[in-house]
């Protein structure tokens, strides 16, 4: 149990530190690599929570697909196109300070009520985790699965329309 705890702390620290480094980096490619580290560490946490399928999806879809997309677009655009001189923006600084304060407030609330909250006792996962998930996805919750394809289809059509070169 102690090892489990240590592993979680390790992965959480990597994820949070990479995310923090990511939002402060000026170079998009460094940001993409740090985003990858965040997503992989979070994937490790998914694996620790016995969510093997979500781990695989995180690796293939997020770490594989989305990060690749970011890097590809950053390379596609002219290297200097997105560069602009650093200007300190007080409004933005205030906004992120507000986010930080609210986050700390929620965290403090959490820890103050740490023992008062009645969480249910931890239930055992089904033994064949991914199989159960397949049953749920393709039998019990099939409408949800089918409806998930509608935004994807809309996105495909939308991106093709956006990327189409004007011929007039």
């Amino acid at each position, binding site marked *: 149990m102690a090892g489990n705890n240590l592993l*979680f702390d390790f992965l959480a620290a990597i994820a949070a530190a990479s995310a923090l480094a*990511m939002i402060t980096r000026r170079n998009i490619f460094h940001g993409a690599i740090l985003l990858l580290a965040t997503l992989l560490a979070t994937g490790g946490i998914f694996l620790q929570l016995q969510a093997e399928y*979500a781990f695989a999806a995180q690796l293939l*879809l*997020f770490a594989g697909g989305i990060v690749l997309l970011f890097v590809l677009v950053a390379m596609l655009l002219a290297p200097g196109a997105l560069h602009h001189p650093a200007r300190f923006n007080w409004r933005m600084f205030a906004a992120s300070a507000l986010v930080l304060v609210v986050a700390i407030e929620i965290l403090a609330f959490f820890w103050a009520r740490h023992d008062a909250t009645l969480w249910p006792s931890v239930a055992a996962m089904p033994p064949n985790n991914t199989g159960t998930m397949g049953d749920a996805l393709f039998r019990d919750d099939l409408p949800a699965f089918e409806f998930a394809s509608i935004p994807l289809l809309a996105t495909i059509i939308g991106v093709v329309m956006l990327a189409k070169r004007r011929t007039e």
Partner: protein
Amino acid sequence: MIPIEHYLAFSLVLFAIGAAGALTRRNPIMILMSVAVMLTAANVNLIAFSRLWGTVHGQLFSLFIMADAAAETALGLGILVACMRRRDARGAAEPELSKW
């Protein structure tokens, strides 16, 4: 299982970092990356509660979030490329778009 509060605290920290990034960065690619971090933080919550209750429905929901995150990223980057192309065609020097 580690107490759920640890997962909630981690998810909150990750979400706050993502939100701060999305609010402060002006580079559109960086904003989309920060949004991806925020969505991952939401997924951590869903999967932790899924483990707590011993069902797979939280994991199921996290898959839908991942699919929508992919769609959102593709669309955002598509809009960005289209805007950049139009700006190049017009020959404008000042990148107004990259403010946001």
